[in-house]
């Protein structure tokens, strides 16, 4: 069919080929460093910018936006709003109110229009879910406090971004804001109805066909997009609502979600590359704004995050890790910016600045997760170093003259059942736990003695009366915690969790009495159970019962 389309088709195909080849080449060249994909796609766009006519790609890029936002909707669980608002809500609020306002003020003072200032403020305030969750995947999957907090902040900011897009687009096209908001509510209501009632019908009709389920989901998206065009609100709102409409149980709709994921990856890659290709000419002023945005997101924002979390009672390590997960410009800011750019309300130079700042901070953010959390933590300790100890003392409770006791650091999945067992056997236990939420809800109810602080601080061990203890078990596999324990003067047997085998062996070499690695320890136990069942299938029930009893020890989960 090659010759039928004429040159336009050939041009489009060539443009598309350039998009993917440049992206592929760049990803390949940079594959040895663990960089996030999104900024690399933008850079690939910068490289091919002079050679492609973006006009051809813009339509495909729009589909990229639609699928990207749709993907967010599919994954969001709105019921989380209730649970997350407290701490994550404060962080999100501070970022938007304080940081957003400061940048908007700065831009106005510089003489930019209110439109331009607003877009810059949004770019400074919102953080990227894609990059953030890619960087913190381990922590999120493992339900670590910092992963969960950062993830919740992203979630709240994404919701807010959808509202911002709704309002800003309405203003740009002259639709009354109240009307736009009302339409937004209608869309979400329709999405809810579809999800509740019509989605099941689709499933019934499609049967086991992944292809039809996937195409059905795309059709829902197409319907919502068309509807949003019809009433004049942003397609982002339509795409998000469509995502909520087909939000589905990952277990049952695995292949449909896989299918959507592929289509989304394809189109969103086009979006990010096109975004880079749109950056045309970077003037001095634009560069200055890149600088401002980078400082605002990579320096001021983490500082703000840490201050808020410290005020909420989190320890320095958790606060700094959350901060390191949030120090980048959001892809939603890019979606919002391209809206403004295409609507003609955002100056091209500033659009360039936002795109460049996003690419830059997404790269730096990958580095800060690796190395920066430590830097942030040191800043924080320097900043608040004087305050923290008094707080630890105030919130801890340890019986005077306690001795011969067991100290358990960390009240998580391992710590908690262990403490339960120790208490059953009549041991006197001191728990060390830094997470304020966990402490208020679980630790205080379970034990009489606890220290409310980070186990890497020597003063925490002093408070826990470590020198008089007879056994210390740490279930926090962090090097700083191990260091604190290694430096301790105590007669107690120290049993430390390490993050991996090498770390455990290193600890043993340095003289701790015991070291364990969670997965290795678990695997020894598992090997015994598997052997029992394979050698005598009759024993399955017995092994199973023992395992289920063990599970119930862990309780019904902490989160």
């Amino acid at each position, binding site marked *: *069919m*090659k010759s039928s389309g004429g040159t336009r*088709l050939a041009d*489009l*195909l*060539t443009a598309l080929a350039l998009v*993917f*080849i440049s992206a*592929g080449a760049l990803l390949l060249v940079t*594959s040895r460093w663990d960089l996030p*994909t999104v900024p690399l796609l933008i850079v690939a766009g910068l490289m091919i910018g002079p050679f492609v006519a973006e006009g051809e790609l813009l*339509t495909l890029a*729009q589909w990229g936006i639609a699928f990207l936002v749709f993907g967010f909707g599919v994954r969001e669980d709105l019921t989380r709003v209730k649970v997350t608002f407290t701490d994550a809500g404060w962080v999100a609020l501070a970022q938007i109110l304080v940081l957003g306002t400061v940048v908007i003020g700065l831009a106005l003072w510089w003489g930019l229009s209110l439109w331009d200032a607003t877009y810059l403020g949004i770019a400074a305030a919102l953080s990227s879910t894609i990059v953030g969750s890619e960087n913190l995947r381990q922590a999120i*999957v493992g339900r670590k406090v910092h992963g969960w907090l950062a993830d919740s902040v992203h979630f709240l900011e994404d919701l807010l971004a959808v509202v911002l897009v709704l309002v800003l687009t309405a203003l740009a096209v002259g639709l009354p804001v109240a009307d736009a908001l009302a339409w937004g509510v209608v869309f979400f209501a329709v999405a809810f109805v579809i999800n509740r009632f019509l989605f099941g019908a689709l499933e019934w*009709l499609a049967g*086991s*066909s*992944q*292809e039809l389920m996937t*195409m*059905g989901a*795309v059709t829902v998206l197409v319907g919502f*997009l*068309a509807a949003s*065009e019809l009433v004049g609100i*942003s397609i982002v709102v339509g795409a998000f609502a469509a995502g909520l409409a087909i939000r589905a149980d990952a*277990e*049952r709709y*695995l*292949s449909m979600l*896989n299918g959507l*994921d*592929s289509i989304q*990856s394809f189109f969103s890659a086009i979006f990010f590359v096109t975004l880079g290709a749109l950056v045309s000419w970077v003037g001095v002023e634009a560069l200055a704004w890149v600088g401002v945005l980078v400082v605002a997101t990579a320096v001021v924002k983490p500082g703000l995050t840490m201050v808020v979390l410290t005020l909420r009672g989190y320890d320095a390590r958790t606060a700094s890790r959350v901060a390191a997960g949030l120090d980048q410009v959001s892809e939603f800011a890019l979606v919002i910016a391209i*809206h403004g750019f295409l*609507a003609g309300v955002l100056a091209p130079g500033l659009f360039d600045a936002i795109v460049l700042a996003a690419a830059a901070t997404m790269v730096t953010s990958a580095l800060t997760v690796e190395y920066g959390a430590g830097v942030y933590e040191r800043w924080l300790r320097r900043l608040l170093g004087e305050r923290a100890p008094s707080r630890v003392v105030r919130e801890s409770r340890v019986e005077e003259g306690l001795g011969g006791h067991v100290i358990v650091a960390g009240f998580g999945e*391992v710590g908690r059942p*262990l403490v339960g067992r120790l208490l059953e*056997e009549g041991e006197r236990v001191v728990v060390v736990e830094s997470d304020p939420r966990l402490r208020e809800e679980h630790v205080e109810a379970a034990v009489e003695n606890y220290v409310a602080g980070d186990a890497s601080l020597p003063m925490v061990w002093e408070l826990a009366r470590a020198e008089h203890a007879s056994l210390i078990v740490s279930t926090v596999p962090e090097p700083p915690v191990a260091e604190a324990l290694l430096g301790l003067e105590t007669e107690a*047997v120290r049993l430390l969790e390490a993050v991996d*085998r090498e770390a455990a062996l290193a600890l043993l070499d340095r003289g701790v009495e*015991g*070291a*364990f*690695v*969670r*997965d290795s*320890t*678990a*695997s*020894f*136990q*598992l090997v015994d*159970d*598997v052997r029992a*069942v394979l050698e005598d299938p009759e024993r*399955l029930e017995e092994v*199973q019962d023992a395992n289920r009893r*063990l*599970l119930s020890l862990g309780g019904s989960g902490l989160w």
Partner: protein
Amino acid sequence: MTTIALAADFAIIVAAATVMGLIARQLGQPTIVAYLATGLVLGPVMFDVVTAEGLVELMAELGLGFLLFLLGIKMRLDDIREILRPVINIAVLQTVLQTALAFGVAYVLGFSMTETVVIALATVFGATPIIVKVLTDKDEITTLPGKIDVGVLIIQDIYLVIVLAMFSAENIANPREIGVTLLVVLGMMVAIGFIAIASSRYVLPRLFKTIADKKDVFFLLGIAWAFVFILVTEHFNLSVEVGAFLAGLSIAQLPYSTELEERIAPLTDFFILVFFSSIGLHLAADDLLAYWVEAVIASIILLVGNFWIMFYLIDREKFSVETSFLGSINMIQVSEFSLVVGGLALAQGFIDAQVLGFLSLMALGTMTFSTYVITYNNEIYDRVRPFFSRWESEEKRDVALRTYEGHAVAIGYDEITRRVLPLLDEHFDDVIVIDRRTDHVDTLKAAGFDVIYGDLRHREVRKAANLAKASFVLSSSAQTEINARLIDETADDALVFMEAENHKDAVRMYEAGADYVIMPASLTVQSLIGLLEAYREGRETLESKLEDAHEKLRGNPLG
């Protein structure tokens, strides 16, 4: 933002095709039939609301490109190695005989010489998507008749690519011109094929190895690779499809091909829908029905003739009568590729729209009919068995295919599974490990395990491990959607051990039917409780017990 092509033709096609697809599904028809019908409904034949221009044309072109890329990726010679020789014999002779039959039929029906050549070349192919889809749904794709069919289809693909390339020529009625074109095309194919093979041996393994662990990068690089070939073939004036096919072929023999295939497939589904619909869009009612009598006659002759040709050829290779019958009756239809070839011939001006209409009618009719035939192939054989028994003889026997049975499958190579693997190796003849990290694949292969590279989310990967026949499954994935799928797909009497991230998931997995849920935290607690008991007996007991544990930790099970 009003420029988005949402109200555009493309969106309408997607929505309409999905609705038609859902209807077809209720009638037991494949989606391709629905997509063709969609084009007829939306195009000049009925409502005439959509035209195949601009974006639609690009998407259609991409659809065809991705379809051939996917076909190329699927050409894993390993899959048909055991029956390669008979399959080549069957495929070559079948191509010759069926082309002759179709040529004769078209000639007798009064088509011109050029048209007759196009029809003869276009109608040889079996409908890969239909055969593969229906047989997979019936779980017959890995049976001997299924493998023979797949093998013949694979070889037909090469033939298809040659035919497509030939049609880039100016005139196909002139034998000398055909000869020259064929030589040029073959020369180029050999050259590009050589590059493809060379890169699949020297460049790609290293290239993909560095990035295969990153899901998105891997996917984008796969697409980029296809586009490189598309650009090159386009530059040499070969059709885009040839390039895409060769790109796929060069990846096919890599261990990562199954994984890439799974990611590309949904994208292909998405675009191919546009392609098949666009065929209908090109046809007017007059065109479609111009040769309807001829189409009916030709369809009947080809349905019967194709069956006997295939039956004769498979029987000739001394397979059992049942295998010959089933292998033949699956392959009777005229495939969608007749439309690919016909579309190209139309674009080149070799035929007019009425001949394409003739081909479309034949494809629609025979594919619809053969879907039912394949679905009930065993029942039909039971009915006609007495008649076919005359071909039975002593020397005809089916070769035994090697499949996994009563084996153990381990998902994920990590700290938990690696210590269990040697134990499984003692108890089972085959231990297959599924993992998606290239360095793990190397380690495991070196240790003598069968390894499948890929993500268990993907059906192809689960199928490759033949989960249904496994006796023992050990999953170190804690993702409940994957584990739920595992429980579904394994036999009831298989032992299924799987990991869970938290207590809630663990309980759910037990309810879903897991035999044993591995929670590393709980197993660790169990082991720590053992240490606590030792601690209560005295410091020395504890220390000796710790020494044992450390000794285990130092050991490395796979050496």
